[in-house]
């Protein structure tokens, strides 16, 4: 057993772990962020993709020890703002003028453009592959702001989806790229917070 500290979405997280612990399990069990999913444990499906200081890694294929002291961003790190309370809707109707994000007390700006595009393009069905898919897409589009559809396909070739046939995911990638080009300042690095006890 060994003490390991990793910064996850700006939070400093320390845990005493079995040396065999995967980064995936550290994120899920020590930091308690279960949005990063275990789909195969052999670095094939991409459901566990996270960012380690700007690089995408499949967290099932990395030991937590290997990223000790470094900074990791997971799906939960993309939309921290959304965690504010949901406004309760009472008697005023929105039928016929449907605006789901607004109705949820959220704002389009609370979500990353990739998340917004996935919602609008119906790029997720069961949603299990979505966190990994979104992390990969975000990372790719930050470095490649003007991709073709084939570029987007290649970018997500390491992420499996069994539901969508990928068509709407590629649509979402193109839509997100456009949004990100028009709002170059959408990266909001989260401030570091005091360490939690884990």
């Amino acid at each position: 057993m060994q003490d390991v500290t990793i910064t996850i979405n700006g939070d400093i997280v320390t845990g005493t772990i079995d040396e065999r612990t995967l980064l995936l399990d550290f994120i899920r069990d020590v930091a308690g962020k279960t949005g990063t999913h275990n789909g195969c444990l052999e670095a094939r499906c991409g459901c566990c993709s996270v960012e380690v200081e700007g690089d995408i890694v499949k967290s099932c294929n990395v030991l937590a020890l290997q990223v000790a002291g470094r900074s990791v961003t997971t799906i939960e790190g993309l939309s921290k703002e959304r965690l504010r309370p949901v406004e309760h809707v009472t008697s005023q109707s929105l039928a016929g003028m449907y605006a789901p994000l607004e109705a949820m007390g959220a704002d389009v700006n609370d979500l990353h453009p990739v998340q917004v595009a996935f919602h609008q393009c119906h790029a997720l069905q069961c949603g299990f592959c979505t966190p990994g898919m979104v992390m990969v897409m975000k990372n790719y589009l930050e470095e490649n702001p003007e991709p073709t559809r084939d570029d987007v396909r290649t970018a997500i070739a390491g992420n499996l989806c069994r539901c969508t046939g990928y068509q709407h995911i590629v649509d979402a990638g193109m839509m997100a790229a456009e949004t990100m080009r028009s709002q170059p300042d959408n990266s909001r690095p989260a401030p570091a917070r005091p360490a939690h006890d884990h």
Partner: protein
Amino acid sequence: MTQAPARPVASGVAAKLVGQSVPRKEDLALLTGTARFIDDIRLPGMVYAKILRSEVAHARVRSVDTSTALTMPGVLDAMCGADLVGKVKPWGDLMQDLLVGDHTPFAVDKVLYHGQELAAVVASSRYEALDALEKIEVDLDQLKAYVDPEEAIAPGAGLIQEGITYEFGDGNIFDRYKVRIGDIDVAEEEADVVVRQRFTTNRQAGAALDPHGCIADFDSFTGVLTIYSSTQSIYMVRDVLADVLQMPRNKVRVIIPEVGAGFGSKAQIFPYEVIAAIFSMRLGRPVHLVLTRKEIFQSGTARNGQVRYAELMCKRDGTITGYRDYIIHNTGAMSVWGNQVLHIGTNVGMLPYPIPNIRVDGDIVHTNTTPGGALRGFGIPQMIWAKEQLVDMAAAELGLSALEIRSRNVVRPEVFPFRTPMGHVIDSTTIYDCLQKSAEAIGFEEHTAHPTPYEGIGLAVSMKYTSCRHPSFDTDQSAVRLRLETDGTVTIYSSDVTHGQGHATMLSQIVADVLGVGFEKITLAQPDSLNSPFGLGTYASRGAAVLGTACRMAAERLRERLLTIAAHVLDADIASLEMSNDRVYIARLPDSGLYLEILAGIVAYRTHQLPPGFEPSLEATATYDTPTEREGADGSGNLSVTYSGAAHAARVRVDPETGLIRIVDYVMAHDTGVVINPLVVEGQHQGGFLMGMGMALGEDYLYDDEGRLLNASFKNYLAPTATDMPELDHNFEIPAPSLTIPGGQKGAGESGTGPVPAAVGNAVFNASGVRFTSLPITPEKMLLALREKERQGLSVFRFPDDMPDFTGPRTHAEWPEPDLSESVDFDWDSFDEIEDLELDDLGDVDGAP
């Protein structure tokens, strides 16, 4: 901080939501990582179980010893098959009104497939559980394994399932299927062209990315077993689990977490659910048991493989007059659904042609392979793969185009509903228009006139059922309970698990339209067997049509209640009232009226304002069972309430150097009736295509001679990636609203899969001159076939049947005849008479010992 803009009070009548691409309610939790799938649930004191699985496919179990494993650090309990004999009830396959008790938590006397459960341990952590598995000692006596279903029914083959007497089967034939429509002999005699071919299909996994798994949590004081399970059907899990454990059904509570897809592979109970339950009952602690990817490939069920000796008979003008088939249906070592897959797939797979003469014999066969199960398409892709290729072969002999022969035959009645000879009642369809649209959009005429070398076009048409009334499953019901909450919001309770289909959105659209309540005010409760109304679960493309109808009925009942109260309070005539914008109002005064929360408040807290004697309830429940038929003795019957049409056209390019086959364009034209949410339905079709494409071009279970599954990993199980896929932007909906379903909708989930392997196969033939008779069509097979075709100097060629070393039968005369033992000659007419007997005729059975 961004402020949500002030909301205006909407006036006038709100637009209807059914028919609009409303973005899904489900998305936010899934997009932000807050959704809880099975592996994300943590309960206090939870411990981890792991299963030891057999490394051989067929063996006698001499002994399984868990004693050393029990001494390992952190280990709390262990068990194997012998420990449970006489303590839990077997469960099993569905077979012509009977359940066969061939499923047990662990192999006891015999291992039947690679990956079958042998023992399990539970420990404080996953690592400790895995360490302990290695200390379980297993002594097996290996037997010859049967991978090939034809080998499994050959004379002298060893018996796989021992100790079970099948009523209609024999040896490794677990059950038999037959269809007798019209007179096939006359059809053959009078046909101008008969085309024949032996076709085989592959095993395919659902491979839902969210793993199969559960958490069992037994409370020893109340005796309640709570099980969180990633399943498609809560009541199937509850009823079977309660029966296996011999517990009252209201003491078994099944709760659904977020379910990350299933495609049919989670539409049954699995041994791991029983194992986790028993561990939890023995320990009094929550037990986590989530399968690994390898375990899911091995035991999570796979598509049933088939061998089909299929024949199609046609008149000179192209009219299809007969279809004959002998099918060997490989359903693996055991299979809850395998039998039904053959019945449903073959019955519905006859469509969209009203074929007058049909003779089918099917042997449902056990092999030492992964259990067969439900998988998107449910037998229809296999049937269409054979039949739609025969249609192209007949067209070639008759000098007709692939479009002409199909145009001549697709069901196109003058009057609906129309009953086909097979018994399908087609209540509406635009399949002819879909066919024309798909051919036009792919450029069929243009390509036929000016073909490009190594590029080909293929067509295929199919229809998909929207029901699950099976020969062994005489029900097709779903239910919804709606509750108007005291603030005017609405909660939907249903037991049909949403796992990607968007039930919350789809049902909310229906409720919003009927009750005039805001879409954002409607919530779908997670299925929970303690408080969800009884329904079958989510499979068979029933969501929109069957569950949606139950939801509409419940909403109409609730609407009736609310209108009655409002009429009383407003002292108005009920006929003058409307519901919209969260209000009930007098039609000519749309900006006035009573808010739903006021009406709810009256029912809940101010009951003296209710009409005299009015029951103060805010709930309405409806169960919808479709007007479908059971299968008749001749195999005919209308098994589906309505049929969704699919006409697909593929354009493929074959690289003769590498054998690589690329789908460069793909057109899907569908009739899904009234589409509730076009974007969601488009997504269903695209996903359905992916599964069909995987089946056509790469996905397969590879076994060695000893029955070991060699590719239980995404490393070498070739699930399509984004770069493998064509652009799927040529989608057309030509709706023919269902006349039977009140809202007009038809099932969308599986109609995108049915035609894909056949359309690709036909296109590959058109491109390369090679008629592939076995799936999947891989680059290796393509290279072999091209080389052999060239060596023999042929322009067209069937593969693998035209290979010199092909040892299978080549002509009809050599084809195997189904084994006509006595059970097949069972007198069905007298069987019907027995069914008709009154119970009194059987005497008083109550006093029987």
